[in-house]
C-alpha cells in the first residue's frame, strides 16, 4: 500500500514534469504580467511549443465565442508575442521518458527481480549557434523491494531508489574545433553489442551488459577537445572526474565471482579505495581517425585507472584475504570499418601492455601476475532479402605472457556474437535476437526481444535474457539469473 502511494507520487511528479507546465509557470517570464493559459491534459505533447500554440489558438477561439470573456485582438496578439518572447528567453527543449522495467527469473523459484520505474529527463538549448548546452538526469525507484524479500537489506539500500545526474555539458564550436566541457560519455569503437574499444567510461554492471549501452556507461566529468579537418578527426580528452565500474553489493542478481580456487571458502575482502576526483587522477586519452577511400581507420591511446580493482590477496592460515586496489594502466587501440559490396566490415583491437591477472597459485605472494594482452574483434553487417539485418562478430583474447596458473583464462580465448533484427508493419513491430558465445568455458547468452510501438510515444517490449554454459565462464556462472522481462516506455 505504501509502495502504491509512493509509485503514484512518482507518477504524478513525472506527469507534472512531463507536461512541463511546472517549468512554464515557475520560470520567471520576461514580463511580470505574463499570463500563460496552460491546460494540463494527459496527452503528452510531442512538441510542447507547437501544442502550446495550438492551445493558444483554441483559447483564442473560446474567447471569441464567449462574449463574457471577449477581449480585443490586440491583447491576444500581445499575449502571443509575450509567449514567443518567453520561448526565446528560455532557450530550452525538454524531452525525456517514463519507463517501467519488470523482470522475473526464468527458473525456480521464479522470483520477481525487478519492478523498476524510471524517469529520464533531458534539457537542451543554444546560447548561440556555436554555444550549446545539454542537461540530463534520471530517477529510478524499484518497487520490487516492497513486494518481495528476494534481496537483502544491502541490495535494497544500493538499488531501491537512485537519483543520478547523467550527461550534462556545454558544447562550444569554433572553426575546426569542438570543445565539450562537463559530465560526458566518450564512445570509441565499432562493435555492436559488445564493449571492446569502448574503454573510456566506467560501466554500471549491476545488471551485467543487459541494459541499453547508453545507460551502462557512467558519464564522467571532464573536457573533450576535437579538431576536424576534411576527413581527419582528432580528439583529446582529460577526465578528472574519474568513475569506476559498479558491480553491485553481495546479494544482487549479478554478483561477480571472486578469484578463489575451488573448495576455498574462508575469505575476507576489504573495500577498495577509489582514487578521488582531481587532475592528478585524470583519465587522459587521445584518438585520431581518418577516412580514406571509404576506409575509416582510427587509433587511440588512453592512460587511465583499471575500471575494476586488481584483486590482490594474501593467505593467512588458509584464509584468503583480498585487498582490491585500483592501478593506473595504458590502453592502445585501433579501429576500422569499410563497406564492400553491401557488406560493412568492421574491427577493433585493444592492447593492454601491463594488465594484471589473478593466479591460482597459493605460493604467489599477492595472487597477481602481470601480462600484456590483446582483445580484438572482427565483424560484418549485411541486410538479407532487404529486410533481415544481420551482424556477425568474432572475438579473440590473446594473453601474451600466459601461464597455466592464470585463473579462468587461456592463452587464446575465442568468442562469437550474432545479431538478427527486422522491422515489421511500418516499423511498428521490431523483432531482435542477439546471441553471444564464449568458447573457453563454453557459455552463451541469448537475447530474443519483441518490441511494439503502441503509439508514437508509447512502446512496449517483451524479451528474455538466457544464460547457459560452464560455470567457470561468466555466462555459465549467471545461468540461474536467466530472466523474462517487459519494458513499457513513454517518450516525450
Amino acid at each position, binding site marked *: 500500500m505504501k509502495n502504491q502511494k509512493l509509485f503514484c507520487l512518482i507518477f504524478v511528479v513525472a506527469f507534472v514534469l512531463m507536461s512541463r507546465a511546472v517549468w512554464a509557470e515557475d520560470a520567471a517570464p520576461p514580463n511580470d504580467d505574463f499570463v500563460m493559459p496552460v491546460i494540463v491534459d494527459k496527452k503528452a505533447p510531442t*512538441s510542447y511549443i507547437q501544442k502550446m500554440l495550438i492551445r493558444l489558438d483554441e483559447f483564442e477561439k473560446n474567447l471569441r465565442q464567449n462574449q463574457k470573456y471577449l477581449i480585443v485582438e490586440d491583447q491576444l496578439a500581445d499575449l502571443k508575442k509575450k509567449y514567443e518572447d518567453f520561448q526565446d528567453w528560455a532557450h530550452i527543449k525538454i524531452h525525456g521518458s517514463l519507463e517501467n522495467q519488470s523482470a522475473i527469473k526464468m527458473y525456480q523459484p521464479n522470483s520477481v527481480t525487478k519492478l523498476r520505474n524510471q524517469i529520464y529527463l533531458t534539457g537542451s538549448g543554444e546560447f548561440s549557434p556555436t554555444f*550549446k548546452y545539454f542537461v540530463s538526469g534520471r530517477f529510478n525507484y524499484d518497487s520490487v523491494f516492497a513486494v518481495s524479500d528476494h534481496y537483502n537489506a544491502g541490495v535494497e539500500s544500493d538499488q531501491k531508489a537512485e537519483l543520478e545526474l547523467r550527461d550534462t555539458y556545454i558544447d562550444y*564550436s569554433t572553426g575546426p574545433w569542438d570543445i565539450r566541457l562537463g559530465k560526458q560519455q566518450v*564512445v570509441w569503437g565499432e562493435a555492436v553489442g559488445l564493449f571492446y574499444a569502448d574503454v573510456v567510461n566506467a560501466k554500471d554492471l549491476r545488471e551485467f551488459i543487459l541494459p541499453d549501452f547508453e545507460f551502462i*556507461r557512467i558519464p564522467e566529468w571532464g573536457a573533450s577537445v576535437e579538431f576536424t579537418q576534411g576527413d581527419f578527426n582528432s580528439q583529446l580528452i582529460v577526465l578528472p572526474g574519474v568513475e569506476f565500474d559498479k558491480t553491485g553489493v553481495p546479494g544482487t542478481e549479478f554478483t561477480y565471482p571472486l578469484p578463489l580456487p575451488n573448495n576455498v571458502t574462508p575469505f575476507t575482502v576489504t573495500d577498495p579505495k577509489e582514487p578521488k576526483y582531481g587532475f592528478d587522477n585524470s583519465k587522459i586519452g587521445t584518438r585520431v581517425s581518418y577516412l580514406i577511400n571509404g576506409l*575509416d581507420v582510427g587509433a587511440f591511446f588512453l592512460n587511465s585507472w583499471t575500471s575494476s580493482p586488481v584483486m590482490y590477496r594474501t593467505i593467512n592460515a588458509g584464509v584468503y584475504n583480498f585487498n582490491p586496489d585500483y592501478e593506473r594502466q595504458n590502453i592502445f587501440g585501433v579501429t576500422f570499418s569499410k563497406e564492400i559490396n553491401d557488406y560493412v566490415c568492421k574491427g577493433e583491437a585493444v592492447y593492454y601492455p601491463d594488465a594484471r591477472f589473478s593466479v591460482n597459485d597459493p605460493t604467489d605472494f599477492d595472487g597477481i601476475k602481470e601480462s600484456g594482452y590483446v582483445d580484438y574483434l572482427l565483424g560484418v553487417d*549485411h541486410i538479407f532479402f532487404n529486410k533481415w539485418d544481420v551482424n556477425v562478430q568474432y572475438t579473440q583474447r590473446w594473453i601474451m605472457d600466459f601461464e597455466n596458473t592464470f585463473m579462468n583464462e587461456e592463452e587464446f580465448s575465442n568468442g562469437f556474437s550474432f545479431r538478427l533484427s527486422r522491422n515489421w508493419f*511500418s516499423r511498428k513491430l521490431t523483432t531482435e535476437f542477439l546471441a553471444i558465445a564464449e568458447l573457453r568455458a563454453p557459455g552463451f547468452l541469448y537475447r530474443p526481444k519483441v518490441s511494439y510501438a503502441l503509439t*508514437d510515444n508509447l512502446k512496449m517490449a517483451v524479451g528474455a535474457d538466457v544464460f547457459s554454459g560452464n560455470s567457470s565462464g561468466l555466462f555459465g556462472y549467471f545461468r540461474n539469473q536467466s530472466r523474462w522481462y517487459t519494458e513499457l516506455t513513454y*517518450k516525450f
Partner: protein
Amino acid sequence: MKKNSMMFIVMFGLACVFVSPVLAQLTPDEIVEKVDEIRNPSYDNKSDVSVVSYKPNRPDHATRYAVWIKGKDKTIVKTTEPENERGQALLMRENDFWGFFPEVSKPIRISLQQRLNGDVANGDIARTNFSGDYSAKLLRTEKISGKDFYVLELLSNKDSTTYGKVILWVMTENFWPVKAEFYAISGRYLKSCSYEDYKTIAGRLRPSKLVLKDAVVKGQYSVITYNDMVQAEIPEKNFTKEYLNKLSD
C-alpha cells in the same frame, strides 16, 4: 506608351531569337542540371520534412525529419518525430554512410543497402541530385494536357546512387520535374514519384510535395512534404560521424 510597347516587343523578339537556340541546344545532362536546381537549391540548406507512409490494411506511419545538405554529396537526415524514433540520424557522405542511435550513443557504419531500407529511401528525403550521379538521355518529347515534356532516361553511373535507372518527365517551358519512375539496378520497376504543389521555397518555385507510389503493392504510397527550407552556412565538420552526437534538432 506606344513607343515603350514597341521597344518591349522588339526586345522580347530579340530575346526569343537569342535564347531559343540556347535552350534548343541544351544537352540532356544540362536539362537534368536545371531540374536539380529546381528540386534542390545548389547552396547549403536545412529543411524540415514530413513523411507519411500509407499501406493497405496497415496503420499510417508519420515521421518528421530535420535534413541538412551540403554540396552534392553530404547529407544528414535526423528523425525529430515520432518520439519513439527521435534522435536517430543518418549521415551520407557520397559512398559512406553512418547511422546514429540514441540507445547506443555512437555512430555505426551502415551500408548503402541499409540506407535504402524502409518505405522511403533516404535519398528521396534528401532530394539527392540526379546530375553527376546519372547520365541522361533524351528518349522523346511528349505533349500531355497541352504541355510539352522532355522524357529523359537517367542511368546510374555510380555505385552509391539510390536507383539504377530513372525515367523523368520534365516540362520544357520551365524545367519543372512532374513525374519520375524509379528502377532498381536489376531493372525492376520500384516506384513512381509525382512532384506536386509547387511553392516558393528557398527563393524559388519548387515542388513542396512528393508522392511516391510503390510499383508492386497497389495502394502503398508515401507523401513527402517539405515544410520549410532555409539557406544555412553549415560547416564541413558537421558532416562527420564524430559530429552526429552533437546535432541539435
